[in-house]
């Protein structure tokens, strides 16, 4: 009886998403447990934050201020570039995608399945998180939301063996797909020929194809390129940019689906009038 029920549940969950709400309700039962396991770990971290000396805090503060000034400067230039980009796109009469909104979610330190690279964060459906949302950290792409439960959500990392992300070489715009390797510091690019124009040190950014990840975020850096003369494809390995095993704060991204058409002539005119 129980066996039949299990098989029924298994097949329903495999082929449909009818059990999603059930999973949500059951997850409410186990959230206290997850937070209970996370509590000692996060409190140790909070304590170590609390015990930072004045000197080191001050040093950190000055360093951060310098960095902030630096970033601000870059941003100034960036906004100018963005405007220019919009103007150029207007010339081509193509649309421009709006920026993204983000929500900061904190990692709950628990492990999910041992053969998967998945993490749990403390923001769920109640914050409007939904499946297939891209997740970033300060350095690059982390992964995407696989299960949005009421209070938490599960995120698959880009290094999971079952995950693939469409990428682009930043230097020359070469498109390919990066697969997870099952190791936290490695991505594999199995679909590039032996004569592909790619060298160690190249930055891979999201290409925006596939529609899940917004275009232009850093994903990984190529570390090795091995030619296989007897095979059609080369072995290329890359190292994820995001601090997959250390970052505690993750950013869940909302893409604005609506494109703003900038092709209208009047706008072009005013734009140029301003110049």
């Amino acid at each position, binding site marked *: 009886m129980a066996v039949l029920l299990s098989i029924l549940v298994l097949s329903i969950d*495999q082929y449909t998403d009818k059990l999603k709400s059930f999973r949500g309700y059951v997850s409410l039962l186990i959230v206290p447990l997850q937070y209970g396991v996370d509590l000692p770990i996060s409190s140790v971290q909070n304590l170590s934050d609390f015990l930072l000396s004045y000197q080191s805090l001050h040093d950190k503060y000055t360093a951060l201020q310098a960095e902030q000034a630096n970033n601000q400067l870059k941003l100034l230039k960036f906004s100018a570039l963005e405007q220019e980009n919009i103007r150029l796109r207007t010339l081509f009469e193509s649309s421009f995608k709006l920026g993204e909104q983000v929500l900061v979610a904190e990692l709950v330190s628990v492990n999910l399945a041992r053969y998967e690279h998945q993490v749990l964060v403390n923001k769920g459906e109640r914050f409007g998180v939904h499946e297939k949302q891209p997740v970033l950290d300060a350095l690059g792409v982390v992964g995407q939301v696989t299960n949005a439960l009421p209070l938490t959500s599960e995120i698959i990392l880009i290094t999971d063996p079952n995950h693939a992300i469409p990428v682009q070489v930043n230097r020359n715009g070469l498109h390919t797909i990066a697969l997870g390797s099952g190791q936290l510091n490695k991505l594999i690019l199995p679909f590039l020929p032996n004569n592909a124009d790619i060298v160690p040190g190249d930055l891979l950014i999201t290409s925006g194809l596939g529609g899940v990840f917004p275009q232009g975020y850093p994903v990984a850096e190529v570390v090795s390129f091995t030619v296989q003369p007897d095979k059609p494809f080369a072995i290329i390995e890359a190292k994820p940019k995001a601090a997959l095993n250390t970052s505690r704060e993750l950013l869940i991204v909302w893409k604005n689906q609506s494109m703003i058409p900038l092709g209208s002539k009047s706008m072009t005119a005013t734009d140029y009038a301003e110049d």
Partner: protein
Amino acid sequence: MLRISHNNTLIYWLSVGVAMALTIIPLPFASLNLMPDWVLLVLIYWSLGRPEDFNIDKAWCVGILIDVLSGQLLGQHALAYVMGLFLVLKQHKMIRQFSIIQQSLVLGLILFVAQVVLFWIVHINHDISLSAFLWPVLTGILCWPLVFITLNKVRTLL
């Protein structure tokens, strides 16, 4: 052994909760494969001690909880636990007579069955080798005396 059932139920769920917590404790990636299936060990303990109270149905519910806990396909742990516990319940009178070492070995067989069931299901969606599922069997055998003695202590204390 002859305690009020209510008290035992409380300890049952408490011990299962602790086992679940042990399952999700974050550990370095390499040692994850070595973790025994704590929950299954605890379930086996209870179904040996009080087969009439802690039976297949409860094991199934716990299995579903574990599936949600680990974000997996619903029902895989439920099925594995049901299979394992069915074997235990069939033979619980015999297994109870064994010394703790003999018990460990018999349980090894049961853990193996459960892990193989789990492997089959996981294998549908993941390309993964069986060896990752055999470590928990071995460590489960080694950890059984620990679980057994600890839970016996807890049960007599309360």
